[in-house]
């Protein structure tokens, strides 16, 4: 069989299609070097803005929950969880404890799915020295199969609770669209039991890696809850003493338009970049990890590397995989279904705002609501837009250490560093072209 291109009129031509990829995100890195020093490192995001903040205007919060899920195919639960908690806080809704547990289980599913994908198929080839996931699969097929089984376990949780694995549909203000039975949740046990073995093996594998050494001090920001590892609620804290309510995000952080990117970048109001995500969470919330995950963190002495070396973010994801699987098992074992799917609620005028921890970090949303509870204005700040400035800062620090190497190797090392943050432009960088501009 041969490649064929068919013009609308029917004429046949041979062409070389180089960019046969999903089309949800495009980005590039522009590095400006002068006299051997990095002048600027710009992560250029040229995908068109998606205008979700405008699309939700005039909608009820139940509609908003389904609309914001469409922002991302990997982390729809994060968008839904943030919106539903924002609405319930604004409307004074207290949900059943079983609903609280189910939502946490749903989030565990998304973390498992997202982290397994990134560790095994996106990041691990870099760190094991394979040029692609194809080469990794050829040489370590069992490893990749294990990663896929882990990802499947996460998908199964999201599909069972959310109705489908991508863009789930069951989350509603006040609870869920239906009562989720005990036997439905219990059916997840076998997959999760296998997943627990797989995540323990993942930790052993990841701890044995030797990623490129690149240490730097970063401002780390994450949610922190008094009683649990942060997912659905908490205060915003940092490793330099910040401690504010999540709804006060705008008082300490701001978004800016930069000329080289269609995505807004977020900074602290003092102008400093900051880093969200697994490394920040593991660093700031280590004492709240599930005992299994906490033990792995100590056993492999990973805490310092996770806090200070971006290339060790894979270890933070592995620790969180242990946490998410172990906690999912606990929730499944203790699940008692609510008597009704959701509790009644009455919309009212006000501000609905909240933050939760998406796989890639803190996701903030704020909705102004009219008397009917319909959105009059909205702000959605995904973690990747908050991480962009920190990524650029790290690239500017890292690049000088590799500029003496061949162009292809520089590209690979910089791409590898970018991948370590698991960026999601819209959410994702789909392909990255390196341009190095030397001015003298």
């Amino acid at each position, binding site marked *: *069989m041969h490649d064929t291109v068919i013009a609308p009129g029917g004429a046949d031509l041979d062409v070389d*299609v180089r960019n046969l*990829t999903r089309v949800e995100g495009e980005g590039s890195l522009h590095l400006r070097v002068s006299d051997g020093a990095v002048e600027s490192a710009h992560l250029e995001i040229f995908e068109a803005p998606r205008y979700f903040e405008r699309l939700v205007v005039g909608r009820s919060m139940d509609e908003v929950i389904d609309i914001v899920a469409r922002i991302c195919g990997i982390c729809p639960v994060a968008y839904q969880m943030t919106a539903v908690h924002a609405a319930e806080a604004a409307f004074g809704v207290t949900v059943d404890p079983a609903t609280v547990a189910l939502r946490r289980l749903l989030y565990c599913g998304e973390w498992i799915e997202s982290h397994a994908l990134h560790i095994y198929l*996106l*990041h691990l080839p870099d760190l094991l020295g394979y040029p692609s996931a194809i080469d990794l699969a050829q040489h370590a097929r069992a490893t990749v199969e294990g990663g896929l089984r882990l990802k499947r376990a996460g998908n199964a949780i999201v599909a069972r609770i959310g109705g489908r694995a*991508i863009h789930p549909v069951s989350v509603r203000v006040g609870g869920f669209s239906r009562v989720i039975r005990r036997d439905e949740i219990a059916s997840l046990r076998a997959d999760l039991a296998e997943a627990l073995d797989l995540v323990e093996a993942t930790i052993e594998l990841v701890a044995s890696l030797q990623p490129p050494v690149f240490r730097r001090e970063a401002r780390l920001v994450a949610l922190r809850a008094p009683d649990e590892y942060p997912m659905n609620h908490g205060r915003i804290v940092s490793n330099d003493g910040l401690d504010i309510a999540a709804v006060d995000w705008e008082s300490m952080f701001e978004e800016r338009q930069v000329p080289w990117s269609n995505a807004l970048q977020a900074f602290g109001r003092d102008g400093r970049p900051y880093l969200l995500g697994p490394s920040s969470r593991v660093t700031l919330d280590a004492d709240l990890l599930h005992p299994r995950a906490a033990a792995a963190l100590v056993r492999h002495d990973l805490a310092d590397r996770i806090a200070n070396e971006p290339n060790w973010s894979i270890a933070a994801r592995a620790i969180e995989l242990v946490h998410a699987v172990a906690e999912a098992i606990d929730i499944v074992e203790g699940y008692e279904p609510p008597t009704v799917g959701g509790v009644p609620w009455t919309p009212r005028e006000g501000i609905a705002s909240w933050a939760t921890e998406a796989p890639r970090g803190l996701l903030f949303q704020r909705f102004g609501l009219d008397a009917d509870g319909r959105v009059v204005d909205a702000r959605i700040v995904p973690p990747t837009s908050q991480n962009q400035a920190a990524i650029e800062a790290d690239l500017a620090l890292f690049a000088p250490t590799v500029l003496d190497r061949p162009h292809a190797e520089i590209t690979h090392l910089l791409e590898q560093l970018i991948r370590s943050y698991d960026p999601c432009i819209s959410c994702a*960088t789909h392909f990255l072209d390196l341009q190095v501009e030397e001015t003298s």
Partner: protein
Amino acid sequence: MTAVLDVPPVVRRPEVPDTLEVIPSVPTTLVEMLACGAPDRGDDGAGVIAVGRLADAFPDDVRTRIVGQLDIDDLLSVPAGAGAVVVDTVVGVDPGWIVEIPFSGLAGRDAGIRPRSSHALSIPETVAVASIIRGRPLPGIVVAIGGVDFGLGEALSWPVAAGMDAFALAIADAVRRVRRLVQDAARRD
């Protein structure tokens, strides 16, 4: 002459036994048509729309699945002995133009690439990894149309809308070719 059974008759209650003997059968699916994209995102939904137009065009051994974003598991679940046709919208060809690439031609095209997506793997990588895990190459064709507008709530761009008939015909032709390939392979085996 009358045969005599030398075993006593057995009387059973009319219950379904716990396990039923599974009688091996030939695969009932010869081709899986995997439609990628989101129909509410402009040109991204062209594949789903085109496949919908072909709903009644194939025999029962051609199965259609809407997969959104192609995942390795989507290809791993294609039955052994069957083939696949991946239908999608792509960038890299002019809007409205249609490209067909056999799975066997994908790997070389992306040789040496690193994982370039933080969302998911590219189609070439997805197909290649799935084939490695399946243990043998999966017969199939990617049929894609070049897109230009992918915003939520947008309609198909005019070049893509104008190319939809040709797109549907190309998909139908690809399904027919993969089906014939699979049938020929089954006869050889």
